[in-house]
């Protein structure tokens, strides 16, 4: 029987009640007394010099309360990059200031250079329209294509950066010569040129922020769509506006999805705070979807050449990649880490590869900033690897399953020091591959292919065996690698006098279900009902300083902090129990919600101990503080390494080029699983996004830097009709060796492992259909691209 509560149970989500009845409270749902509306004036050119902004007419329009321009923020700080990356020659990356409002130049379509505050949104929009008319922006040639950006030193996104290169990174630079030699000596070399398509995250809730200021206390409050309220507070207070952190509360209430895009601090957050202070009224802003398309940090956007050196029987000897990675117009907070340490360090995948070298050049362009989007660097690495391995199989006539088996690390090789800097603690990659093969009924494929053919369709099968490094991250390690923040997390467990519990956590749930899962863990450990535990998150005035949720870290890092805080509660409870039961502390055991004296029937319930802590009439006050509340901070010893094997089957319609995913099988190793239902949901969502990237989604700027895919009319979002039911398994479990829950994280897996499985399946289908000239099709493998490839 599956468990019905606690760790490992598929407990139903408590947060669903409010979401299903329309009682969730998202930022835009909050109406405040005397609130004013902010509307941003955004550049309609990709690159331009800001001339005179004449506010005269706009200021006089009905309802207008204030107008801000870049000039108003020229003396405050810029929105910083969170990671310092050094180039191969040791020089630090180029790091231009990212102002609250554009100053001097606008650098992408949508770059805000002014903001209007008015009584209503409609009035603010009217005035913003007027202000745009009264602003002189001298258009400059747009820099859109990365290769052109690097080649043309005369045209610069940032005047002080001559070649538009942020850095030229080599990983690991010292190994370069050895890798080159290994590649040269390899009996066979496979080369692929790949584009990892630029994506727009499209969390369904558009970004929104409300600034408040109390002139009586000097306190600010920012309610905002954030995945990490403490990080946002640190950035906006300490780095940008210079507000003491203790004078700013950041609240991230119900947040409608993030996928990375709501990790980052954006200028709109600083603006509403500054405006609230100026006006002494709450100031709110909610993005329209068009603004989200233009200004949310985009994802991916790599152009990669990958070479793989191997033996004729498919043993991988060396891998070398050269990548141009777009960072857009400004450095978003994680944008320099994503194409480097979240990408290059994964380039040996789950395989034993002796020689790996990764070169990444990041390029400024007149496009929206690009940063981490679900998976963040790891999908790009996985895609490059899994595509080139498939190509190797095709060139050498080898079976893709057997080649992967040959190269996968074996269980006896852990812990494994990869050639690109990571220490994999544990795994069993054969087990997930075997499981996937069984789930997908690989043996029955030929029969299914024949059935498809009878219906006029080409069927293909694609495989991807993937690994990621998540549970981000050991602070000392990332510090060496250039991170400017720590990546610990924290939790406070407050046992109330009547024995129920409030847990304040640094992680933030914007769909993941922490309120349910975290409560399951606490309830299990304390032997109390889940309903007695509430999880509090998203408010810096309530929770300890944690780093929020991204990089599949919530459970592995914050969950561990919470577990450690619970352990402290139990330890203190034992002391109280020892006193009450007149026994030695060492004789007290805690099990099933009871503190007992070993070998006796003497016991106190958890509730009795809690009550005693707050009504300490019979209590060792001379040696023990009253109360029962503990905080733990946890900094992980290593990354976690989820891994898995994905098998995709597609049908291709040769007449139209349309690809349909007809089956998708996932065999994942997430270590221990706390709530299977939620884990499955995370995998479904990730695979859905991965299929979106593989088949549908793309971002196109024209040569003038205009975003052509700026709405759902042109940016293809996956719909229910575009995806199948997914077959998900997580029974292969090699628990993480360095956190007490043995968890690895599951949020990004689907988006990492699935794109190459889909594309490999399409290429397989085309080859089976006789279209053997098709070596590769870039994502999205859209109908027109497939048709053109077939007929090209």
């Amino acid at each position: 029987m599956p468990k019905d509560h606690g760790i490992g149970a598929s407990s139903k989500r408590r947060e669903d009640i409010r979401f299903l009845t329309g009682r969730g409270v998202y930022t835009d749902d909050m109406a405040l007394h005397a609130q004013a509306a902010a509307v941003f004036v955004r550049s309609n050119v990709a690159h331009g010099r800001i001339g005179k902004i004449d506010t005269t007419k706009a200021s006089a329009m009905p309802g207008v309360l204030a107008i801000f321009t870049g000039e108003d923020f020229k003396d405050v700080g810029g929105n910083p990059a969170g990671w310092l990356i050094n180039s191969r020659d040791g020089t630090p990356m180029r790091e231009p200031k990212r102002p609250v409002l554009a100053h001097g130049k606008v650098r992408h379509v949508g770059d805000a250079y002014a903001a209007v505050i008015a009584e209503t949104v409609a009035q603010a929009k009217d005035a913003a329209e007027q202000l745009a008319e009264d602003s002189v922006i001298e258009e400059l040639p747009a820099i859109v294509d990365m290769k052109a950006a690097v080649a043309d030193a005369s045209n610069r996104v940032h005047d002080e950066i001559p070649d538009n290169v942020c850095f030229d990174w080599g990983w690991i630079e010292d190994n370069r010569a050895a890798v080159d030699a290994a590649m040269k000596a390899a009996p066979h070399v496979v080369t692929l040129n790949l584009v990892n398509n630029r994506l727009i995250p499209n969390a369904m809730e558009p970004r929104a922020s409300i600034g408040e200021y109390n002139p009586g206390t000097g306190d600010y409050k920012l309610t905002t769509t954030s995945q990490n309220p403490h990080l946002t507070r640190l950035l906006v207070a300490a780095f940008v506006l210079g507000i003491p952190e203790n004078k700013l509360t950041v609240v991230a209430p119900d947040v409608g999805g993030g996928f990375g895009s709501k990790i980052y601090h954006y200028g709109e957050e600083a603006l509403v705070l500054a405006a609230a202070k100026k006006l002494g009224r709450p100031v709110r802003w909610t993005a329209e979807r068009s603004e989200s398309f233009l200004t949310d940090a985009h994802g991916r956007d790599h152009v990669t050449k990958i070479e793989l050196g191997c033996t004729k029987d498919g043993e991988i000897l060396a891998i070398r990649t050269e990548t141009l990675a777009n960072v857009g117009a400004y450095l978003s907070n994680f944008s320099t880490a994503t194409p480097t340490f979240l990408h290059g360090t994964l380039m040996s995948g789950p395989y034993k590869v002796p020689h790996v070298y990764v070169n990444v050049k990041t390029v400024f362009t007149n496009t929206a900033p690009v940063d981490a989007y679900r998976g963040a660097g790891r999908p790009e690495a996985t895609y490059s690897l899994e595509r080139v391995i498939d190509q190797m199989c095709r060139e050498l006539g080898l079976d893709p399953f057997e080649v992967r088996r040959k190269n996968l690390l074996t269980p006896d090789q852990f812990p494994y020091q990869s050639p690109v800097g990571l220490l994999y603690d544990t795994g069993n990659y054969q087990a997930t591959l075997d499981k996937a093969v069984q789930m997908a009924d690989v043996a029955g494929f030929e029969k299914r292919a024949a059935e498809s053919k009878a219906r006029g369709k080409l069927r293909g099968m694609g495989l991807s065996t993937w690994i990621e490094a998540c549970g981000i991250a050991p602070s000392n390690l990332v510090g060496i690698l250039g991170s400017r923040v720590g990546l610990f997390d924290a939790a406070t467990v407050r046992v109330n006098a009547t024995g129920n519990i409030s847990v304040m956590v640094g992680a933030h749930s914007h769909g993941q279900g922490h309120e349910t899962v975290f409560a399951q863990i606490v309830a299990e450990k304390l032997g109390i009902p889940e309903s007695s535990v509430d999880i509090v998150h998203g408010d810096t005035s309530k929770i300890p300083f944690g780093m929020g949720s991204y990089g599949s870290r919530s459970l592995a890092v914050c969950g561990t902090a919470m577990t450690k805080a619970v352990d402290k509660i139990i330890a203190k409870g034992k002391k109280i129990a020892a006193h009450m039961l007149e026994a030695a502390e060492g004789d007290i055991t805690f099990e099933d919600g009871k503190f007992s004296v070993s070998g006796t029937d003497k016991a106190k319930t958890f509730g009795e101990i809690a009550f005693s802590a707050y009504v300490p009439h019979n209590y060792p006050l001379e040696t023990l503080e009253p109360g029962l509340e503990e905080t733990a901070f946890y900094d992980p010893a290593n990354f976690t390494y989820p891994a898995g094997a994905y098998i995709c089957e597609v049908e291709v319609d040769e007449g139209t080029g349309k690809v349909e995913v007809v089956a998708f099988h996932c065999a994942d190793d997430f270590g221990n699983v706390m709530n299977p239902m939620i884990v499955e949901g995370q995998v479904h969502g990730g695979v859905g996004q991965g299929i979106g990237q593989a088949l549908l989604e793309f971002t196109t700027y024209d040569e003038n830097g205009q975003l052509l895919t700026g709405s759902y009319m042109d940016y293809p979002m996956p719909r229910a009709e575009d995806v199948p039911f997914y077959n998900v398994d997580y029974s292969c479990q090699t628990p993480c060796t360095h956190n007490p829950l043995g968890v690895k994280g599951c949020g990004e897996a689907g988006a990492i492992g699935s794109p190459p499985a889909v594309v490999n399946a399409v290429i397989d289908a085309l080859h089976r259909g006789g279209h053997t000239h098709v070596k590769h099709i870039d994502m999205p493998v859209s109908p027109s691209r497939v048709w053109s490839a077939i007929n090209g």
Partner: protein
Amino acid sequence: MHNFDFAKPSTIADAANALAGEGAQALSGGQTLIPTMKQRLAAPGVLVSLTGIAEMQGVCTGDGGLHIGAATSHAVVAKDAHPHYRALAELAGGIGDPAVRSRGTIGGSIANNDPAACYPSAVLASGATVVTNKRRIGSDDYFQGLFTTALEEGEFITSVVFPIPQKAAYVKFNQPASRFALTGVFVAKFANGVRVAVTGAGNDGVFRWKEAEAALSANFSASAISGLTVDPAGMNTDLHGSAAYRANLVKVLTGRAVTAAG
């Protein structure tokens, strides 16, 4: 969006009067017009809703075929036209999504004449008659290019009359984002010949593929068009497909529509 005065007349005559005023614009289901107004690309002074006019609602058979009131929603056409003209009903049932079909109307779609809309292909392939508050317009005269029709200032569609073919089918290939027709082909076989109308593909809006009509009039089977080619020169190129790709789709979908028509 900019503000406007809102009027909702209950007769065609009142609507005609309201639309004769300065800056007045007709609003039918609003599924295209309202998003356009949100972008401030349209800013009428008066918006005249046509959905409150009883005589512009509903589906019935009568002289010349199936009469559909211009303010009839796609959802109602999908249901009520089904017994009479299945291909048309299926086309209506495939426009947008259910919520769009609750509001969007045939008159609004045809008046707007979006080059990727579904309805124009049915009107043109059926040789339907567009009835306005002023006159009757044959489908071959009505569609005049991208977003352009024979409608004059102050003129609005009150109904559309569809001759009912012996066999017909509409096959649509979705643009993956908007779900409009990247290309859609409506094939209608009448006693006196076959008409084939293509939406989404042409660079001048909906058009008849006359070579296919001739071939199919002689032999109504998919194989009849296998030797034909579509010239990409007349096709549209955009983010989602080249002219050559659309030319291919025209042929492939025409064949599939013929097969579907039976």
